[in-house]
């Protein structure tokens, strides 16, 4: 089986570097790591075109003051599974109540479980 291709949206570089490492360690390939919602949307213009070049995504919710939901919507429209990773305890996320939320600091075991879930969903 080929390595799952994962996109990361996370505004804090330090946390992004760790998520990249965690994912690489469990056999994923980082297809893109973005610190801003705009950059992620730009990337998805191409990546979300079928067949998807992505197998899943890990999304911070508040990305430098901008909510990540437009990215989540585009991923959902393209049928690409994703999880949220956030430091906010309870966030309003109308329409995304069914999406798994990983709390920060990130539990590597839960992250691995979530990524395995991507494979099944795809």
């Amino acid at each position: 089986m080929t390595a799952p291709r994962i996109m990361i949206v996370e505004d804090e570089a330090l946390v992004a570097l760790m998520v990249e490492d965690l994912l690489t360690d469990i056999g994923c390939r980082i297809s893109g790591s973005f610190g801003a919602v705009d950059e992620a949307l730009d990337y998805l213009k191409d990546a979300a075109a079928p067949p998807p070049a992505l197998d899943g995504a890990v999304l911070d919710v508040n990305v430098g003051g901008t909510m990540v939901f437009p990215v989540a919507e585009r991923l959902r429209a393209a049928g690409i599974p994703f999880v949220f990773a956030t430091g906010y305890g309870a966030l309003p996320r109308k329409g995304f109540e069914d999406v798994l939320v990983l709390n920060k600091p990130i539990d590597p075991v839960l992250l691995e479980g979530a990524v395995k879930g991507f494979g099944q969903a795809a």
Partner: protein
Amino acid sequence: MLNVANAERSEQADHAALITLVETIEALSATRTIEEVAAVVRSAARRMSGADGVCFVLRDGDQCWYLDEDAIGPMWKGQRFPMSACISGWAMLHGQTVVVPDIYADDRIPHDAYRPTFVKSLVMTPVRPKDPIAAIGAYWAVGQTPSPDTVIRLEAMARATAAAIENARLYASLNEALERRTFLLRELDHRVKNTLASVQSIARQTLRAAPTPTDFAESFESRLMGLSRAHELLTRQAWGRTDLRDVLEAALQPFGGLADPRFTARGPAIALTAETAVALHMTLHELMVNAAKHGALTSASGQVTVVWRIEEVEGDGEGGGGAGPSLVLEWVERGGPPVFVPKRQGFGTKLLERGVARDLGGEARLTYQPKGLSYALRAPLSDRIAAATAPRALA
């Protein structure tokens, strides 16, 4: 007999007015907002005065704000007038009740504002005469001299209203304080979790690069102390904007800060958001630690020059910045031992090249020249990073 009957009727009227006043005070004591106070005042004042219309006017700085009214015809609800140009203003400025039997014979009245209304006579009484915060006006469509009883009743109501307004303001500020507290607690929770996530990242990545537990402990603690100093700086700024030079000073603190003659720092005042200040602090901390271990700070004659400036970029989109002004910051080491390109990329290098630059949508480059290491950061100005408006003395 007639006089006795009149006296009885008058007594009954007094009695009724007293009951109305007590009911009004009760109703006012149950109010929680200025709007509720206004609603009680407007109907009670009209009942007690027998007037054809009443107004409830709030003082708002040097303006009279006609907040609410109850009348047979439209008056000035929602409008604002200068204190000096209306009779409610006069009453509030003088702390006195005004009785005007004929408004067109009184030059304190702005006649043009009254012409479209039914008003011929009025009483205006300030709320809290010593330092008026509002006024209650009663208006009649038929010219008359309002009775002393009417004036006394309106003044009694105004006194009860003063307490109600102050209560409403107290409630408003209490609610605001409670909301603020809830907000701060949520924000604190968020920041603690994000900080813990940063520490988690530092721990994992320091561990990756550490050959021994002792090396791990040393590097991890050094980074943790750096993070702690960054937070100290932010707390001093109440998590507001922080100046770049202060961030640099804090990062170099283990070396005595910029007072160490080996450091030269030059650049304009740049305001950073709290998050950016932490990220830049980590970067400068890594550079300092590296310089102390392998670079210019290993020798007494070493030099570290940190310069920053704002550069206008001709917009070709290259350099991560695109068009528009960018912050350019350079860290240049000289006078240390010869520098070699490291064989493997450690966490420090990764952080320097991808840390703050990624956060800011810019780019960073490490250059290993034999004469010394240099680091250059270029990041577009944004809401996270801005030229400070007040010029700052440069050292």
